[in-house]
């Protein structure tokens, strides 16, 4: 190997070009992150008799977790949380696809089961082509009847924090295959009656799988303890306390999976829904 000015110039130019490409890629990733963050952390609906809150922390610059709220014209609020297979940019692209399918399905379907059925119908071919899938849990909260109706497409069951007691349990089980797993799936619904001070904690498995420096996992037990300790706070405060508890446990160790949670907290029963036909976006 020899070194002359021609070789030197070639190397310098190549390095400069690579540096320019790297900077450009970094800028585009940051733009993508901003877009995803804005879409994920958009407007949170406000309504009488309760509150919802949600947040998502990607493990990498951008992630594949997803949550959303959709206000229905009958005063109900449709909530969805999901986890796209994989991580990073590929998962983020599919997350945007999932969001579009949810928004479109929520508009035209009667309940969460129908929404998941329509989403699987819309996404199945694309997801199979891409060898991917998404787990989703979808629920309708009806402030008029205090009923939470839900359907599940392969997602972990949310936790039901019973405000008048110190009991936390998973929602009664309902099975359904991940979206993108099989075609022509029909997702069944189940419903429960919520009482004042009850909270539903929807989450992705990145929470209980968060690891500390010793390789230990945060696990469901720690999550339940954090929720019990803070169950009387507002939805947003509980969310912050759970995140603090996870951060204290992991001590800044970079996580392998995205962390996402959504809370629905009931503050009073039998709400006068006359003002709920047009819930307000705050």
């Amino acid at each position, binding site marked *: 190997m020899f070194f002359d000015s021609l070789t030197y110039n070639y190397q310098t130019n190549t390095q400069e070009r690579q540096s320019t490409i790297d900077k450009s890629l970094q800028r585009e990733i940051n733009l993508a992150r901003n877009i995803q963050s804005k879409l994920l952390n958009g407007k949170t609906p406000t309504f009488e008799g309760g509150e919802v809150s949600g947040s998502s922390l990607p493990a990498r610059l951008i992630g594949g977790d997803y949550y959303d709220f959709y206000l229905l014209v009958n005063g109900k609020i449709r909530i969805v949380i999901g986890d796209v297979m994989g991580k990073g940019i590929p998962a983020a692209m599919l997350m945007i696809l999932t969001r579009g399918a949810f928004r479109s399905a929520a508009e035209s379907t009667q309940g969460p089961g129908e929404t998941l059925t329509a989403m699987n119908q819309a996404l199945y071919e694309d997801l199979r082509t891409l060898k991917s899938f998404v787990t989703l849990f979808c629920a309708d909260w009806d402030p008029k009847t205090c009923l939470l109706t839900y359907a599940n497409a392969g997602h972990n069951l949310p936790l039901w924090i019973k405000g008048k007691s110190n009991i936390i349990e998973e929602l009664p089980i309902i099975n359904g295959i991940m979206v993108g*797993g099989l075609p022509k799936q029909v997702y069944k619904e189940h419903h429960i009656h919520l009482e004042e001070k009850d909270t539903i904690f929807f989450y992705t498995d990145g929470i209980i799988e968060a690891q500390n420096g010793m390789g230990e996992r945060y696990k469901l037990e720690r999550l339940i303890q954090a929720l019990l300790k803070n169950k009387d706070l507002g939805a947003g405060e509980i969310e912050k306390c759970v995140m603090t508890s996870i951060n204290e446990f992991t001590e800044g160790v970079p996580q*392998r999976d995205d962390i996402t949670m959504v809370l629905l907290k009931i503050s009073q029963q039998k709400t006068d829904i006359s003002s709920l036909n047009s819930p307000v976006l705050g």
Partner: protein
Amino acid sequence: MGLIIEKGELGTTTVYKFIGILDISTANRLDTLLEDTFGINTLIFDFSELDFIDSTGIGFIINAIYLSQEKNVHLKFEGMKELTHQIFETVGVYRILDGIQREGV
């Protein structure tokens, strides 16, 4: 900790034993695993020493289910630990395997 895959063959049955972690950092090694299934009638995935599986690992299993149908190979799972079983149950892996083997797509 990574992933070790042990292969065993007995007649027309091939067993792949997954040892360690089947996640985004290891699953890409599996792309070629099911390319050559010539002469195989039954494929067994042994998960008895699988310590962790994430969504990318699940994605590999789903693809293996579809590939086994395309290649007319009977796929079976063995050595399910409680956690792996729970994950498969939750996301619907068993029902996909059952649906594909029973009815195809």
